[in-house]
């Protein structure tokens, strides 16, 4: 870690503040850039404009045009240059304006960034954190809403981080930027302003591979496993079911790779019944891996088949249809009831 000269580093902040997830991300980028002058942020419209959602607001003013760089409109080279920047000793934090446009960079992310350390047998690491917003519910045009985590989860060498709370957005982003390996840091559009919470102002690191138990009692009969914005819906579903006396645990995976198999196993053993919720299409979504993992680790504790709540096997639809497509509280509640009803 390189010593730095900027002010806010000198005065280490204490306490906490209520922030939206978006504010937490912006706050964390400021702190990490101040902490380590090797951190470089770049992408489309991240500089002068502070990002189309203001996630990078104020960074260029504070850290200058050499460390916060507006790039040409070309995702493959945004991802591809990160490889070279890393080899030059920098810590690249590129933004892909929307995850759907990471498709243009797929060959660099899946074929290059994820393998730099492997191909070079450790000569070059890739401490790269790719930030990208995604997800539905906010009436965006095509490809802006798509949940693509499963298409990356099968690629060895990538860590996949999907925070569901403002505090985790900070703690996981800070961990990602300090991680020696490539991280896909996926930010739920719907959560940017809707998800709020206390965020520690000082050093706050959340380790990868440790799921978060959002709600639990000693006598939960069902566990809902979710990640990113679906955790918020699961929480609401659990509240609603609690009123009927149905005790539901909610587990937030936080990181898909690495996956917290232990906590999943324990939850299944304790609850016996499981609902997995994902916004992505059903077929081969990450929920399938969660189910396969439960099959491996806790098969004999299952009292009923695991129930999947997913987007349907259709591309994310246009505005008039999206509320019918994207999983909602009512579908989750229904799935929990079915699971309890089952056998």
């Amino acid at each position, binding site marked *: 870690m390189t010593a730095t000269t900027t002010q806010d580093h000198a005065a280490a902040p204490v306490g906490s503040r209520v922030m939206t997830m978006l504010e937490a991300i912006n706050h964390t980028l400021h702190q990490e850039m101040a902490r380590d002058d090797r951190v470089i942020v770049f992408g489309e419209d991240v500089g002068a404009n502070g990002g189309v959602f203001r996630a990078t607001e104020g960074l260029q003013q504070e850290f200058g045009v050499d460390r916060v760089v507006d790039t040409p409109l*070309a995702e493959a080279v945004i991802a591809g240059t990160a490889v070279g920047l890393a080899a030059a000793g920098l810590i690249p934090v590129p933004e892909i304006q929307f995850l759907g446009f990471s498709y243009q960079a797929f060959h660099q992310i899946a074929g290059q960034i994820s393998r730099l350390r492997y191909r070079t047998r450790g000569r070059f690491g890739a401490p790269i954190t790719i930030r990208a917003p995604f997800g539905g519910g906010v009436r965006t045009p095509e490809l802006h809403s798509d949940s693509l985590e499963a298409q990356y989860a099968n690629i060895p060498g990538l860590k996949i981080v999907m925070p569901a709370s403002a505090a985790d957005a900070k703690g996981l982003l800070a961990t990602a930027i300090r991680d020696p390996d490539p991280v896909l840091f996926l930010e739920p559009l719907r959560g940017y302003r809707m998800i709020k919470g206390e965020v520690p102002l000082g050093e706050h690191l959340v380790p990868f591979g440790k799921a978060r138990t959002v709600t639990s009692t000693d006598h939960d009969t069902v566990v809902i496993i979710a990640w990113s914005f679906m955790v918020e819906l699961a929480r609401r579903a659990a509240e609603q079911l609690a009123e009927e006396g149905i005790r539901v645990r909610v587990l937030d995976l936080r990181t898909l790779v690495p996956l917290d198999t232990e906590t999943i196993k324990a939850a299944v053993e304790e609850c016996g019944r499981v609902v997995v919720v994902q916004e992505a299409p059903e077929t081969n979504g990450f929920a399938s891996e969660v189910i396969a993992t439960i099959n491996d680790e806790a098969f004999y504790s299952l009292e009923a088949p695991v129930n999947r709540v997913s987007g349907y096997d259709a591309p994310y639809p246009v505005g008039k*249809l999206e509320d019918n497509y994207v999983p909602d509280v009512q579908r989750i509640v229904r799935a929990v009831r079915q699971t309890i009803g089952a056998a």
Partner: protein
Amino acid sequence: MNSVLDLPSEPPSELSDEHRRWLLTQMISSRIFSQRVFNLQRQGRAGTNAPVDGSEAMLAGCSLALDPTTDWVLPQYRELVGLERFGPDVLDRYVLYTLGHPDGGNIPEPTRVWPPQISLATQVPHAVGLAWGMKQRKEPGCVLVFLGDGSTSEGDFYEACNFAGVLEAPVIVVIVNNGWAISTPISQQTRAKNFAEKSHAFGIPGTTVDGTDPVAVFEATADARSRAIAGAGPSIIEVVTYRLGPHTTADDPSRYVPTEELAAAKERDAITVFRAELTKRGIWTDEDDATAAATADARMEAAVQAGEARPVEPDAFFDHVFAELTPRMERQRAQFWANQEDAS
């Protein structure tokens, strides 16, 4: 004056006064259409959309140089308010599109215009493939594709133009240089002398025209089209305009657009300039303005009413994923309806 039916589909060899009046009428109506859709978003009736402001002359000039019965247009997303020459469905479906209706993506036969493209520059390979196919099937006509200055930084633009050169495909690639890609100025997009220069990478003709002059755009497009249909292959036309409005309804250009620069561009607003020219020539009156505006308002009013009245099936997202649903999708659709009953 009806701007669509008056003209034969065959593009004119040179421009009459009537053609000039048609051009201005198009320019006026496309801006009105665009402003109306913009306001619909502000009223919460339409989704995010990108105003045409500044591209009106280009769209009128390009349209007039094409034959809607043989030629195709692949837009980016800003252009669909200015292609009425290709038939009323273009605007009607664009309105549906901005309303978030799935049919907005379906511009029906025989209209030769594609719906908006969101994934930037991906439409250029599509256009080249279509032109290649037309050549392979010995069909007449050509393909015109629009992309923005920012979009030229994408590999798809380059790969497609390079391939078009090798194939000698009848395609016209129109680079709409409006100075900006959201907040990124062209100076940060490329160091090429200009965007027409990029044609050297492909060994195809490239030219730069003033996008505030519909006649200049018409002539450049007509030249490129003659080359294309004569089998002489693709061309690139850089049309220099200026984005007079925000990037989209979601954008705040005051954060990054220099005020003087914008003011200067508004001085050169194509509609004002061309109107003055036609008035001077004595072929345009205030009354024509009023008529053009009234026609456009009425046209748009009808489109919006029809669009907002158009029903949509709640499970329409299952349609057209494949020609037929897979068994799994059938099961999902049944689950969808079961949920709906629960909910109600």
